[in-house]
């Protein structure tokens, strides 16, 4: 069932198109990922959906509420965690949570079960000022505050940026719990590896939605064979493969390079005549797919 419907949203800031003609929909209790590089328009889109910014054109419907007309009702049923830590640094962990509970007209006790898994971890520090918390703890507190009124729609703007690897894994586990509680979640991230955790995702680049699909659809629709190639001199190897397979898509991935081509494994081995090279056929990653889709545009 459709929970959120976004229709042709366009927004520009002084001649810069932040979003152009964005349309997609999010299903009920889905974790929907908004994946794209910095400056792609993720934050603008999320702010529009929280009713903080008015779009220049287009509209959106959140659980059948009109984003432009019914923004007051929308603000009651959404939970929002901005990219920047925005709680009060001079208030303690508990005071922050208490404040947000009170302005939503609920008590911490009412929805404690919902935040318990995260809040339990920061509860030993509940007297501590929010400004003195570590990055991971701040994130947990911000999420607790965004959830304390048990929102129906949760919007998270790059919640895992600047958070350590273990906390990131924990974080996604947590999101799945909220999904089971019936909360629809929109989460943006610049990390491609996190995309796999979403039910569906939208690739966004330069204000345009490139594709909307489930991670497995995106991976299965990758039209090439993909090879991981390792060699001591990566740069020369890139140049070499560009020469011998001119229509291949070659991207650098850390120490190795990914070469996407129609050629089979045997054909690529035969074509290659340099030493000390390791070629391995691999499954495409979500990043390969993103790069391919964005290069197509």
């Amino acid at each position, binding site marked *: 069932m459709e929970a959120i419907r976004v229709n042709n949203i366009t927004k520009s800031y002084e001649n810069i198109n932040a979003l152009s003609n964005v349309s997609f929909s999010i299903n009920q209790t889905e974790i929907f990922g908004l994946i794209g590089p910095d400056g792609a328009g993720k934050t603008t889109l999320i702010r529009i959906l929280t009713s903080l910014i008015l779009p220049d054109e287009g509209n959106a419907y959140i659980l059948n509420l009109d984003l432009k007309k019914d923004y007051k009702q929308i603000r009651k049923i959404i939970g929002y965690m901005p990219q920047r830590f925005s709680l*009060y640094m001079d208030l303690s962990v508990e005071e922050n949570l208490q404040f947000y509970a009170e302005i939503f007209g609920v008590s911490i006790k009412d929805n404690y079960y919902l935040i318990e898994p995260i809040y339990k971890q920061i509860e030993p520090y509940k007297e501590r000022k929010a400004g003195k918390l570590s990055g991971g703890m701040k994130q947990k507190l911000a999420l607790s505050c965004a959830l304390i009124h048990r929102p129906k729609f949760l919007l998270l703007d790059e919640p895992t940026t600047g958070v350590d690897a273990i906390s990131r894994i924990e974080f996604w586990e947590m999101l799945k719990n909220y999904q089971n509680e019936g909360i629809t979640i929109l989460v943006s991230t610049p990390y491609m590896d996190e995309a796999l955790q979403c039910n569906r995702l939208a690739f966004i680049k330069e204000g345009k939605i490139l594709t909307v699909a489930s991670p497995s659809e995106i991976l299965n629709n990758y039209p090439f064979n993909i090879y991981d190639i390792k060699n001591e001199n990566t740069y020369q190897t890139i140049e070499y493969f560009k020469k011998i397979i001119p229509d291949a898509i070659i991207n650098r991935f850390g120490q190795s390079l990914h070469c996407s081509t129609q050629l089979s494994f045997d054909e690529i081995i035969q074509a290659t005549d340099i030493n000390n090279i390791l070629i391995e056929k691999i499954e495409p990653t979500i990043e390969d797919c993103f790069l391919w889709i964005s290069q197509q545009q």
Partner: protein
Amino acid sequence: MKQLIAFIKKEFFHIFRDWRTLIVIFAIPAIQLIVFGYAISNDLNNISIGILDKSNDEFSKKIVSKMTFSNFFKIGHILQSEKEIEKLFKSGKVKEVVIIQQNFSKSIIKNGIASIQIIADASEPNTANLAINYTSALINNFVQDISKTTAIVPPYSIEVKMLYNPTLQSSWMFIPGIIALILTLISVMLTSVSIVKEKEYGSMELLLVTPLKSLTIIIGKVVPYFILSIINISFIFLLGHIFFALPVQGSLFTLYMLSTMYIILALSIGIFISVNVANQQVAMLISLVALMLPTILLSGFIFPIENMPKWLQLFSIIMPPRYFIEGLRGIMLKGNGFQELWINFLVIMFMTFIFIILSIKRFKSRLI
């Protein structure tokens, strides 16, 4: 209502956890009161003068002793001849020299007239003026004295009576101004800064995405500063009473009515600033430049409005503190009530109305 209480509670946490805010609220008023009350005083005390008494007889001695025992003067130098005068002024040891003619007593008794010459150092015109006024007053006093004890009828007599502030204490004049200044500081500056802070730190973004109404946010911001301002003016009234024996001739009720209304005006100006600027520095600058300086310079706090050039006088008409300071002086010193001050009340109310309307129009329930 619960939301509002939660908001106000949060606001008090911010205030009491920031030592800078606390200093602004509690230390600055006390310091200002003492600085303005004692240091920046127009009163003269212990002006050093020189005396050249050429006759050294009964009456001349009387005048000299009168000057010696007044608090206004201290005898810095006894001159022997007129030649010393210029050197004495140049050295800056004295501000005024009083020369009593030869045969002073005789001349008075015989002719009914005698002369005293007063020479003042007018490089500081205010001091010179005041010194001469005080000296003339003392001489008048002396003339009255001798007319009582002798049969001599003085050629003239001037009687000066200072109304409302009989001892001409300038602290009485300054305190109403200081109260206006402090209210500007707390109500305008702190309020505007505290709203702008929420914008700057991003917490406004979160607040807007809650069911909180704009009005709740504004009232929640204003109430704590309103309470603090009321406590603060009571504190200043009390300090003024203890240290400067500041009277309240009118009713306390009118005094608090006027203060409360001015606080509401100041708060609405604070909100108006905060809805229009994006960061704390600008908010502070506007509060300081656009409000503190005019409060000090253009509202009649230090410089009488009547002495200003016409165009500045016109400018002072739109200065909110002017009406408050005028009203405060009226209530505290003259015992004025609503009857005399209704214009001040009305102007303050009108200004508040304008700023509230403008603020509500400008308050955004969205980021852009």
